[in-house]
């Protein structure tokens, strides 16, 4: 089920809220579990069993790891958990990728399995791994209640597109969480903001990308506009989903960590990855990069660590070469920044650092969005004038004018300008009163506008569902 759907917004959510808040405390987790299973079943009926089995595996491995602590074979249950969880992820997500490449390398004709990717498998697999690794390390207590553990894994707000909520983040709240009017209102506001980012901004910018693929009269300028709009689209799509997840979590008493922190304000690629998809970045940092030695190793090993982590980050995003190139592209940039560019950037005016960062991010998202390497190269050639096309024409101007305001709103919205402005107003009493009146009105108007966009049935897929 999509958050950005009438069924979720006007049926699933209000019914769940009523049932949840009218139920005694001891039933609340069970209600969330059943609701989450239904939420998943609604969009992916067949794979709900796979998800429950994965949870069961994580639960049993947690118990086994806890039992084996201090023994000679304490690592065995952890290795078993990693092999099973990663094995399932590899099988469902990457089998066809490997078959395709084996066919290509060895000139074979093996048939692909054509498996449908189970929605959210990349996210819930990483959550299960974070749990078993943390139990092994002693950072998390073992969960002895299977239903509570499955509730954590399948919790619908973050189930299918993150953020990757670690068990330690919600460990306490699984058994003791408070519900307050403040949290509920915050959650609703945050959910509506996320919904607006997704439906009004990301989907509209996505329409521009779709239009671009269909027109024949492409120009260099249009290639750049689409690259910019895709970068903004994926930001609003994914950060919108994270906002909705965080908001929904808060409504039901959970405090998920932030997943984005105005990434386009970054002055370097290194900083960007501290602000973008934070839950994934920290996951790889804590469970792959640091165990490999992090940066406390020789230069050569550090470069190896960076390459491995970013290869995995790219590959996690999708079973296509362009995602691997995308990850390695960042690895190269991060190495370059550490040894060459960082010193130069520090001496230059800040706006040049921003331009440098945005330029390389634009290119990265062209890689990310490319339909294979050929498609990516085509787009890059278009952007840099190697396709023998004009710089501009009336078609480009039409769409620039038509989507100009949306792009400007999206650009401003991707910065902290609005937040800073509101904080400035709230700084005095009059301003605080004004915001107190305007805030609910704004959110209700946005809810109705989002409903209008939904009812009109426009373009609506979540980009991060494919991961």
């Amino acid at each position, binding site marked *: 089920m999509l958050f950005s759907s009438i069924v979720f917004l006007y049926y699933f959510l209000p019914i769940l809220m009523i049932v949840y808040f009218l139920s005694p405390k001891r039933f609340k987790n069970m209600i969330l579990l059943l609701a989450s299973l239904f939420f998943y079943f609604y969009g992916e009926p067949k794979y709900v069993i796979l998800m429950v089995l994965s949870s069961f595996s994580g639960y049993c491995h947690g118990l086994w790891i806890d039992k084996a602590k201090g023994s000679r074979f304490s690592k065995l249950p952890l290795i078993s958990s990693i092999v099973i969880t990663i094995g399932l992820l590899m099988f469902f997500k990457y089998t066809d990728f490997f078959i395709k490449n084996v066919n290509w390398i060895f000139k074979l004709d093996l048939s692909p399995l054509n498996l449908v990717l189970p929605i959210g498998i990349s996210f819930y697999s990483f959550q299960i791994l974070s749990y078993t690794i943390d139990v092994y390390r002693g950072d998390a207590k073992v969960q002895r209640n299977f239903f509570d553990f499955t509730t954590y894994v399948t919790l619908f707000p973050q189930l299918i597109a993150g953020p990757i909520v670690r068990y330690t983040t919600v460990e306490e709240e699984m058994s003791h969480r408070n519900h307050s009017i403040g949290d509920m*209102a915050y959650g*609703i506001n945050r959910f509506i903001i996320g919904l607006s980012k997704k439906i009004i901004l990301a989907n509209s910018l996505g329409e521009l990308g779709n239009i671009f693929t269909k027109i*024949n009269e492409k120009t260099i300028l249009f290639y750049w506009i689409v690259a910019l709009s895709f970068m903004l689209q994926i930001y609003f799509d994914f950060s919108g989903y994270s906002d909705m997840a965080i908001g929904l979590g808060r409504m039901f008493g959970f405090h998920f960590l932030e997943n984005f922190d105005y990434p386009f304000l970054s002055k370097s690629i290194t900083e960007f990855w501290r602000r973008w998809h934070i839950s994934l970045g920290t996951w790889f940092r804590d469970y792959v990069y640091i165990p490999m030695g992090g940066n406390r190793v020789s230069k050569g090993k550090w470069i190896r660590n960076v390459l491995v982590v970013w290869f995995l980050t790219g590959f996690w995003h999708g079973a296509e070469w362009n995602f691997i190139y995308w990850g390695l592209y960042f690895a190269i940039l991060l190495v370059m920044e550490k040894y060459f560019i960082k010193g130069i950037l520090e001496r230059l005016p800040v706006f040049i650092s921003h331009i440098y960062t945005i330029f390389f991010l634009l290119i990265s998202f062209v890689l990310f969005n490319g339909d294979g390497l050929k498609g990516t190269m085509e787009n890059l050639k278009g952007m840099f004038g190697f396709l023998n096309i004009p710089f501009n024409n009336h078609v480009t101007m*039409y769409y620039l*004018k038509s989507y100009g*305001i949306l792009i400007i709103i999206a650009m401003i919205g991707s910065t902290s300008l609005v937040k800073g402005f509101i904080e400035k107003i709230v700084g005095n009493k009059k301003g605080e009163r004004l915001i107190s009146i305007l805030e609910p009105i704004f959110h209700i108007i946005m809810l109705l506008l989002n409903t209008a966009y939904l009812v009109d049935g426009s373009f609506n897929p979540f980009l991060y569902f494919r991961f």
Partner: protein
Amino acid sequence: MKNMKNIIIILCFMMITLGGMLSSIILPDESLSFSERRRLEEFPKITMASIVKGEFFNQLEAYSLDHFVFRDDFRSIKAYGVFHLFRQKDNHGFYLVDNTIIKMEYPLNEDSIHHAAKKLNEIGKRYLQGKKVYYGIIPDKNYFLADKYERLSMDYERMIEIMRQRVENMNYINLFETLTLDDYYKTDIHWRQEAILDTADRLLEAMGNSYQVSDIPYERNELYPFLGSYYGQVGLKVKPDTLIYLTAPYMKDALVFDYETMTKSKIYETEKFAGMDSYDVYLSGAKALITVTNPESNTDKELILFRDSFGSSIAPLLLGAYSKITLVDLRYISTDLLGEYIDFSKDQDVLFLYNTHILNQSYMLK
């Protein structure tokens, strides 16, 4: 103050979401959307197979969208958001100028135009040897406004150029000069019958017929409100049109025969005005093959009109000049079947009359 604000937000959110849900459940379902001219989704049948395959939930999504309370009003809000808040130039390819809804047909599909020319040539060679054959192209509304309002449009000159180069042994009748934007409905794709008397004259004159449509004292009959096919698609609330159909004494006993249903009807079927497509008032709307006979005609001359829906409203005007008009809609009947139903051996003018939308999507011509 802060607590009050929070309570207001929660109450409003719950009222809107619960209200939306309850209203959608309680209010009776409509089966048709007249503004969008389509059948609305029905509540899906619940079967184990449809649930396991996910079909049930997909259909439920479509159903929930189709039957959401105040659906048309929400679609209007979205359209206002697109046009006025985000200042976008079109909504689903439609734009609005002075209460007139225009579809932005773009770009020109040259392959489709070549295909249309090929289709005309095929019919010409198979059935129309030795006859005088004519063709006319009806511009869409975007032709008149695109440049002025900086919208995208197909390359009309190129379309005509291809047709004139490719179509063999047929005479082109230029209608781009006779038509203006005022000749079309504001909420619909079609031209207004009462505004195309001069166009009918232009066609007849080009075909060598001295009959003057504009000399006939037609009686105007009004039907209101006419919400055209664009009305529901643009999403905005605009003033409805008035559908006017013209009657004259020669139409009184004229008979329409539908070869598909083997039934007879009148030229104007006013009860169709309340149906899904009000333009069906003219000759009962889209039909594969019909004939209209004029018992009061002073001539034996006939017209074979290959047409789209625009032909339905101009045919009654042209009927005064002929004893019979055969209307062929190639979207619904194959070229191969024409010889079985139409006697091409008579004294006939032949006219292909298509609007630019059809030519740009001509693969629908069978």
